[in-house]
């Protein structure tokens, strides 16, 4: 076995430094392991309390908050719901969610571009949470960085609005690779924009053949019933 990297091969060369005043210390540690540990703890905690947590990711302005507000209204109290809002600054989204009457906690990430599992762990302790509830985590509007950070959620839901362009899955593949469901939102605006829904779905499936797709217009309510059915199904399967 290679004594340097422990890879099981002995016939390859590394750039070894053999000066005696230098030491090489093998670390072999996953850089995101700390986040992953917190995410695993969150997942175990959520599971233990029968909660279904979803991580909503998208560009800024895709309509995440409006979709969540309309979803909470459409579900009409069928499940206890809590919301964790992530934004760089302000509690504007939390105020909109609070108007629906569900419990909400705003996290301001400041200089950071994503939510991480450590912050979510604290939020889960700080929020009043009921057993068997739905926990919606609205991540920072950003199609890049949040893809890397597992929060302990059951699934990532990526929201793409038709004003953003149908090629976003190809441009931001990591997020679509990670998502279980893609919601194409603002479909009421389709007559006014050049957005090819079929092409968008094909691009997303190219990145992630398993991804499910739903279409909604959160402001008119179109497709919200099917989306709520998807949620009910996930909740049912989660038991």
């Amino acid at each position, binding site marked *: 076995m290679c004594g340097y*990297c422990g890879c099981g091969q002995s016939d390859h060369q590394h750039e070894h*430094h053999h*000066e005696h*005043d*230098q*030491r*090489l*210390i*093998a*670390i*072999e*540690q*996953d*850089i*995101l392991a*700390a*986040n992953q540990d917190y995410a695993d703890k969150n997942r175990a905690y959520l599971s233990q309390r029968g909660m279904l947590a979803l991580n909503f990711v998208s560009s800024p302005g895709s309509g995440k908050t409006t979709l969540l507000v309309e979803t909470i209204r459409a579900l009409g109290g069928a499940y206890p719901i809590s919301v964790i809002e992530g934004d760089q600054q302000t509690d504007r989204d939390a105020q909109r969610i609070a108007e629906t009457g569900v419990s909400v906690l705003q996290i301001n990430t400041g200089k*950071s*571009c*994503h939510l*991480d599992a450590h912050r979510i762990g604290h939020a889960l302790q700080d929020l009043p949470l009921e057993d068997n509830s739905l926990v919606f985590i609205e991540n920072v509007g950003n199609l*890049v*960085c949040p*893809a*890397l*950070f597992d929060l302990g959620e059951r699934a990532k839901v990526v929201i793409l609005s038709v004003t953003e362009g149908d090629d976003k899955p*190809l441009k931001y*593949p*990591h997020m679509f*690779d990670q998502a279980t469901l893609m919601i194409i939102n603002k479909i009421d605006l389709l007559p006014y924009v050049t957005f090819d829904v079929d092409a968008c779905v094909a691009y997303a*499936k*190219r*990145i992630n*053949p398993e991804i499910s797709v739903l279409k909604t217009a959160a402001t008119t309510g179109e497709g919200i019933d099917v989306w709520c059915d998807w949620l009910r199904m996930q909740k049912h399967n989660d038991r």
Partner: protein
Amino acid sequence: MHEFNICLDILNILEAQAEQHQIHHIKTLTLAVGNLAGIEIDALKFSFPIAAAKSIAKDCDLVIIPVEGRAHCSHCVDEIVIKSLWDACPDCGNYDYEVTQGKELKIRNMEVG
């Protein structure tokens, strides 16, 4: 740009290692970064000296070993090499494959002196 946060995570690991091994300065740090890891290597190289400016890794050389993306194609059942998640299988042109390598983001080792 999450690369700066990644640098802070690296420094947390290094500081724990430094305490364990009684180290005061790191000369070279070697990372393995997969081509499919969602990390921009230039951004990582740019961010690291800034993040490390007041740490035990101040002025250290950052060596990044890229890890090739590999996947198992569900159609032609071959192991294939992919440069990105939107590459088609070079053998059969399908996109249905399971990534087996290339999402790594690891600290391999550090050289201290």
